[in-house]
């Protein structure tokens, strides 16, 4: 299948007397851009984001030698064409068109959003000749069902921009033009309300609308914006950039930034609309301390909170040793803040006990890709997908988890790229409008490695490996050993079917397609990493791509879809206990010397404790204090009871967050955090793209998070004196070879850069491993399938796997505090009709979900999206506490928890579990805040 290419042929024409050169195939409207006044238009977008439609008849032009007045948006340029865009005749026609539109356009307040009104002003149309007595669409009701935008048909001109945006940009195809002639109107799904339709509330239609028929409610309520700044979304790892539009100190709208290299002007419901949490009443804005977790909180000054925290850490270090203290950096905070936290832990506290939430998501990616390729990151940029002929999606649900990238992927699939989905659930991508997976391998949870090795078996035994690539780019001896291993009969699709449950013919078909279908790319998520063999599965993926030569150019590669906005950055910044920034081991004396010289302290050459190790040690009394920035480990980490026991055993737990989250129920100090709107810094997305975060309002808590870490470090006796995050980035660049060329000046100039960014790649590296693998020769690793120790049996006969949905994000701390709650009020347990019937469970029933670790109650949703024997839920709500059920089994290499495989039983019940009741009571007790003492 052809990849999109820049057109090579050009044609010359004349527009309004100007000689113009335009690409062959361009429209006259496109060719005229930049010449004098733009041709007026309503149904066409000036940025070519949507295909031409030719309905509004405002962009009419005259062309010498041709009759009439064709629409310039649908008329292609031709050699020698002479075009006039202005003439008395054209002006008369345009005024008439505008009059017709205005005759059926309800009067409305001017919010500066209506292009029709703007055009009417430009053309001097103040009234229509068609009177007020004609038929209009005023009788149609305004649809206000969506919490974020309204649709007023009385203002709609049925230009179809919203329909095309939904089709072409978002790829949901939820909107249509229903009826004919005067009866034409925009309809959502089967003429339903927007809220109950298939609309995913991405905002593309609102952004496209040339009138105020579709408009954000915040604009109607607060008025048009007065100022703006470009910043980066703080939700998923796609890293969309937005124009944050302000009215005074109030954010009124987030508009996806058309020049954003990750999102190209698109957005999802979270980034576009779900920022209300920043002003939510639950937000804690004052520092608080307490002597024990059974006491109520006491609000204190920043000075007292910082001094108290430092005193506690010093006391514990003096009493129990520095190795009993640690910290967790946040994948939601900026690179600069993350770098600073790990610096404080290593330099001020003198321990490598620092970890990050990547421990529980993509740490196997780091291990697996570094081992096989030499770099702990994905190989491509997002634009690469436009060149893929075959797309394999493993253990990821992009339409829910990474929706903006999913739209790009779906567009490529609609263009004809083939799709392989490997997932226990029938995710939306398997069958969605104009997209259908060529192969869906619904494997049993926990058998990724067996399926991946079976795919390799087919590639090797059927002679589909790319020997030339392997000989040139990989270790040939290791390949031969690997080929001999995967070719063994026990690795055949037929042999592994017994435990994977996947049809061998489907495996063979998928392998053939991946190996021979052209440029093939693999995208994977936590359904790969969060297993006891997570790292092995990542290496098996890397093996497949090496065996088929799918590296080093657009359209191919291995692409981890990162969960949180700055997971990649948090890993890059030295958040792991064994690595300094840039993935250099603490035992590397050369790297360590660099940091020791810059920081003027010795660095411990031994690795520190990982998060689960810290909790284990705490339960045993050997770990006493922790500083947690922007993570809610009580809700997000496995086996909640163990996490709770670990936190409860510590003498000082410091939570630094926007809200009194679940972890704060076990904290002794609470430091209020700042939102991404209140700080400067950078995030690094899943494609290694470093992008600016820009402060648009003052921090409501008083400080940006990097300033708070700096205050604490000073109080601990290790002064830091950064005046601005740009200075922290300068230090990162100084100490981190892959960031050597990064500076705020460069980011402001380029918009964004992808690391490595250094002398060899001064503006970054979109595609890695172009001329060879970073480690030298690509390493094939043998990937024997080792079943997890988490076994089903008579007591726990079902397998639970967990995930997330579109409207919610991670533990839901942010999204639950927005109107997104209308789409997801509670976590539900998906169960197959067969399993439900066997247990007497009806749709909507409250059920008890029990595992070896614990039990919780939630409502059942009966669906065949899950296979028999498999149940699925999300972990967005603390009331559900889904992680009460998950176990501490973890990846062999990294301790990443095995969230995706838990043996469970499901039974009808009539109330919350004992744990839920106890926890709820404890949480309510723990969140008590004493009223502040009156000032003297």
């Amino acid at each position, binding site marked *: 299948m052809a990849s999109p290419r820049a057109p090579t042929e050009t044609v010359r024409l004349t527009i309004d007397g100007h000689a113009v050169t335009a690409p062959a195939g361009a429209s006259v409207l496109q060719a005229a851009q930049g010449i004098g006044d733009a041709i007026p238009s309503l149904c066409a977008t000036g940025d070519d984001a949507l295909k031409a439609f030719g309905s509004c008849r405002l962009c009419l032009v005259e062309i010498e030698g041709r009759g009439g007045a064709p629409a310039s948006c649908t008329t292609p340029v031709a050699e020698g064409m002479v075009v006039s865009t202005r003439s008395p005749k054209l002006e008369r026609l345009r005024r008439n068109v505008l009059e017709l539109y205005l005759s059926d356009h309800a009067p409305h307040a001017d919010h500066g959003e209506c292009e029709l009104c703007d055009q009417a002003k430009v053309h001097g149309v103040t009234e229509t000749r068609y009177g007020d007595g004609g038929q209009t669409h005023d009788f149609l009701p305004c649809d206000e069902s969506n919490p974020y935008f309204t649709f007023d048909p009385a203002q709609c001109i049925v230009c179809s921009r919203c329909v095309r945006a939904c089709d072409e940009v978002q790829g949901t195809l939820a909107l249509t033009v229903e009826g004919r002639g005067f009866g034409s109107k925009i309809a959502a799904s089967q003429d339903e309300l927007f809220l109950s339709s298939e609309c995913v509330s991405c905002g593309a239609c609102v952004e496209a609308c040339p009138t105020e028929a579709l408009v954000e409610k915040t604009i109607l309520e607060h008025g048009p914006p007065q100022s703006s700044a470009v910043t980066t979304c703080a939700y998923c790892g796609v890293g969309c950039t937005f124009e944050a539009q302000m009215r005074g100190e109030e954010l009124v709208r987030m508009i996806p930034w058309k020049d954003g290299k990750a999102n190209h002007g698109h957005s999802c419901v979270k980034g576009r609309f779900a920022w209300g949490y920043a002003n939510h009443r639950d937000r804690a804005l004052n520092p608080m301390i307490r002597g024990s977790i059974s006491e109520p909180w006491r609000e204190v000054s920043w000075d007292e909170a910082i001094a108290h925290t430092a005193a506690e850490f010093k006391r514990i270090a003096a009493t129990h040793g520095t190795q009993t203290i640690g910290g967790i950096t946040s994948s939601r905070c900026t690179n600069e803040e993350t770098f600073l936290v790990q610096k404080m832990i290593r330099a001020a506290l003198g321990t*490598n006990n620092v970890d990050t939430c990547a421990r529980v998501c993509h740490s196997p990616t780091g291990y697996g890709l570094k081992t096989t390729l030499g770099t702990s990151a994905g190989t491509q940029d997002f634009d690469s997908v436009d060149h893929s002929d075959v797309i394999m999606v493993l253990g990821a649900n992009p339409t829910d988890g990474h929706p903006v990238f999913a739209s790009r992927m779906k567009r490529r699939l609609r263009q004809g790229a083939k799709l392989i989905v490997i997932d226990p659930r029938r995710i939306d991508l398997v069958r969605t409008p104009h997209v259908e997976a060529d192969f869906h391998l619904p494997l049993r949870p926990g058998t990724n490695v067996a399926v991946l090795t079976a795919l390799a078996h087919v590639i090797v035994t059927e002679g589909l490996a790319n020997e030339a690539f392997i000989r040139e780019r990989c270790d040939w001896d290791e390949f031969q050993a690997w080929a001999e291993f995967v070719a063994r009969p026990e690795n055949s699709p037929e042999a592994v079917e017994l435990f994977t449950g996947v049809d061998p013919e489907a495996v063979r078909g998928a392998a053939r397609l991946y190996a021979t279908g052209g440029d093939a790319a693999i995208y994977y998520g936590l359904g790969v990493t969060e297993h006891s063999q997570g790292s092995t599965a990542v290496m098996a993926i890397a093996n497949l791509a090496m065996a088929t030569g799918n590296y080093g150019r657009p359209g191919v590669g291995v692409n981890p879809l990162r969960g949180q906005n700055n997971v990649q950055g948090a890993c890059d910044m030295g958040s792991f206990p*064994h690595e300094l920034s840039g993935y250099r081991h603490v035992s590397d004396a050369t790297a360590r010397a660099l940091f020791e010289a810059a920081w003027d302290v010795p660095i411990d050459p031994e*690795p*520190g404790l990982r998060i689960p190790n810290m909790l284990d040690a705490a*339960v045993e009394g050997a770990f006493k204090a922790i500083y947690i920035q922007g993570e809610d480990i009580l809700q997000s980490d496995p086996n909640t009871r163990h996490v709770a026991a670990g936190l409860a055993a510590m003498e000082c737990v410091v939570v630094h967050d926007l809200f009194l989250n679940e972890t704060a129920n076990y904290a002794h100090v609470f430091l209020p955090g700042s939102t991404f709107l209140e700080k400067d810094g950078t995030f690094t997305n899943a494609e290694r793209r470093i992008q600016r975060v820009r402060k648009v309002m003052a921090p409501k808590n008083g400080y940006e998070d990097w300033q708070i870490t700096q205050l604490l470090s000073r109080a601990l006796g290790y002064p830091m004196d950064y005046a601005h995050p740009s200075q922290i980035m300068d230090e990162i660049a100084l100490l981190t070879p892959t960031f050597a060329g990064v500076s705020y000046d460069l980011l402001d100039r380029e918009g964004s850069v992808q690391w490595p960014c250094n002398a060899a790649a001064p503006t970054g590296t979109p595609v890695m491993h172009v001329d060879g693998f970073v480690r030298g020769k690509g390493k094939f*690793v*043998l990937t024997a399938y*080792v079943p997890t*120790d988490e076994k089903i049996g008579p007591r726990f006969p079902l397998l639970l796997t967990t995930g997330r949905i579109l409207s919610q994000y991670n533990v839901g701390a942010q999204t639950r505090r927005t109107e997104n709650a209308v789409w997801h009020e509670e976590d539900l347990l998906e169960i197959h009709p067969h399993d439900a019937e066997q247990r007497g469970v009806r749709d909507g029933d409250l059920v008890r979900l029990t595992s070896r670790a614990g039990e919780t109650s939630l409502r059942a949703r009966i669906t065949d999206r899950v296979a028999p024997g498999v149940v699925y839920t999300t972990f967005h709500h603390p009331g559900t506490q889904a992680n009460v059920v998950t176990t501490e089994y973890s990846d*062999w290499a990294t301790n990443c928890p095995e969230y995706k495989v838990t043996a469970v039983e499901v039974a009808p019940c009539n109330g919350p579990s004992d744990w839920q009741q106890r926890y709820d009571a404890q949480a309510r007790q723990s969140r008590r805040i004493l009223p502040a003492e009156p000032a003297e």
Partner: protein
Amino acid sequence: MSAEGEDKLVMMANQIAAFFAGQHVDAAAEVAGHLKWFWAPPMRARIIAHLASGAGGLSEVAAAGVARLRDETSAQAVK
């Protein structure tokens, strides 16, 4: 020092050993290297102590790896 904590370390060491036992490498050396690279010193000390106390539950490869780690740690201490 709890038995539960010890069991967890044994399980983790066995998982690591199971992986390296399947590679064409010196599995004991790789297990020792992995433990040295990723485990904090108290965890390493504890698994070495567990080996000394009978190595209960450790697989053959895991035990060999921990023994290699012990020897390397001792040699380093002597230096």
